[in-house]
């Protein structure tokens, strides 16, 4: 997907962009509201990530203009303030959702999916692997005519494997990406979720292999 990141802190902007591109997204960075307008004038985006405190204005003003101009690109606001009043003001101004800095990219992913689902937007998120079609937005796997629903952790596990098929992931790596530090994770959690995903993949040519002593990988037969 294509993101526009509007954030004046260059360090943060650069790291967020780098992190998103690891997931295969294209990211343009604007350091100010004026810069954002320049980008929006020439390119279409699937999602805008917006900081509230910007050098040439308030992100809420951008939201109002954005909505007034009838542009329907969804906007997720990144705010340093966690208070509800701030959130209400942001949502009232027309944001689709908000994230409190610092945020977990899993959470960003979840909110992004929720926003895109709500808006039933034009973003194409489907990916094919072997004889499967995976749609993270609707959290489904399609095998021929059959549609299988994925639960959230299964979905993210699928995303991780799909981002680099045939790559071997260790349990710790999967753990790091599937859970946040705030989660209480049991020792066999990864086995549990891999087991569930395997059941969802049954009947397809895709399978998750256990590489003994190393980890797991997704392969197509």
């Amino acid at each position, binding site marked *: 997907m294509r993101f526009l990141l509007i954030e004046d802190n260059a360090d943060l902007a650069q790291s967020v962009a780098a992190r998103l591109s690891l997931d295969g997204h294209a990211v343009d960075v604007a350091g100010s509201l004026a810069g954002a307008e320049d980008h929006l004038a020439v390119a279409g985006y699937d999602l805008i990530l917006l900081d509230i405190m910007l050098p040439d204005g308030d992100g809420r003003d951008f939201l109002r203009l954005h909505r007034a101009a009838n542009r329907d690109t969804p906007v997720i606001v990144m705010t340093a303030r966690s208070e509800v009043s701030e959130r209400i003001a942001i949502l009232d101004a027309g944001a689709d959702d908000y994230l409190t800095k*610092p945020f977990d990219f899993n959470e960003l992913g979840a909110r992004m999916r929720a926003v895109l689902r709500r808006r039933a937007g034009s973003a194409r998120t489907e990916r094919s692997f072997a004889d499967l079609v995976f749609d993270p937005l609707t959290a489904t796997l399609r095998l021929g005519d059959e549609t299988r629903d994925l639960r959230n952790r299964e979905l993210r596990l699928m995303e991780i494997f799909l981002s680099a098929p045939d790559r071997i992931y260790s349990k710790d790596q999967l753990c790091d990406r599937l859970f946040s530090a705030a989660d209480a994770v049991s020792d066999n959690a990864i086995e549990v979720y891999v087991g569930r995903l395997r059941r969802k993949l049954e009947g397809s040519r895709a399978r998750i292999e256990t590489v003994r002593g190393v980890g797991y990988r997704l392969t197509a037969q």
Partner: protein
Amino acid sequence: MIALPRFRSIRQRLVVLLLLAAALLSVLLFISVRAIAWASVEASQDSILGAATIAIAEELRGGEESVLVEIPYAAFSMLGSSGEDRIFYRILVGGDTVTGYGDLPLPATEATGLEPVFYSRPYQGEAIRLAAVGRSVLVGGVPVKAQVLVGQTRSAQAQIIARMSSRAAALGMGFFFLSAVLALLTAQAVVRPVNTLAEALGRRGPQDLRPVRRPVPDELDPLVAALNGLMARLTAALSRTETFIAEAAHHIRTPLATLRTHAEIAQRITEEEEVLARLREIRRAADDSSRSAGQLLDHATVAYRTDQRAEEDLDLRGVIADVLRAAEPTAELKDLHFVVSVPDGPVPIRGDRLLLESAVRNLVDNAIKYSDGDDAIDLRLDVANGLARLAILDRGRGLGDRQGRDLTRRFTRGSNVADVVGSGLGLTIVREVARAQSGTFRIENREGKGACAILSLPLA
């Protein structure tokens, strides 16, 4: 200056001062009424005495060798009419006493005309009042000076004076009591604006820092101005606190976000187990400090909002729905779902929306954080006995061996949660919000497994 005792109350001070003034005026009234009475009684007695003396003097007849004196008894009966006083007289001709009491004291200057000279002297152990007149009488064709003195004891006069004095005293007392009543009423009237101001301020909630606008007497203006100044400074300090909280949040959270993102990137691009372990710790520390910072700022916000409560009429169901909508994606990450049961009708609460959302959000966050995943989190809102009761039940690890009350203490965490990021402030915030909204909060182990948090708030 009279040193006045130091009164704690203006009213008391005013009453005492007014009573002192009234007492002084009453005494003056008594003294002057008595003095006037005295003077007028004396004047009337003197005129009788004078008339009697003149009557006697006019009866003096000159002769060839001496003076003929015929005491007109009418004169004495005139005097005698005024009580049981004793009457003395003395008639001198050419300096010799011809009749009467020879030792009756003479006036300081000899009386020469028919205009009586009055004077008071002690005589025979009593104070007497005397009148003296003089005239010339022809004795053998030669004018000789004659003097007539008439004296009278003053018991009748004293009686009249005593009677009048007691009336004056009664008048004075009456005057004093009337003044006392008026003083009390005056003091009350003077103190009333102070009392009304105090009442108006007292009726305010402790968080109401609006300036005082009610009209007050000019004398109270400086006090009210000082009060308003203080309130303005307090409000400014509170709003500085708010600005500070916002800026602190920005300056703490932005670098933490950068740090966390870099750690995540590094985690993604390295294969080294050792490095991954380190990065995991970095991410965890960043999460830990961002959560602590968030909770500290939240706590500060709650404290600040508690001091400056912005109450509004709310439907608690709306508050819960908003919190759940925001928490949904986080819960979804763990495949948790909310099972919500709320009454069909509105659940009206009067309170600060931000405080209530903070409390509910903390409880929902906790339920998400401590649940293992693939579970339901129950939210049950019901209304009974004038209370709205929100129960949040999870199937997480519960409270361990700690009591719910301990967990609401600042920075106290359960003994069973060392592996989960947390600040130990969440339940403190909930408890403080409950307190600020006149409600109660408790948390306990749920039967079977998990925790049950109950927030009760009075209905509007």
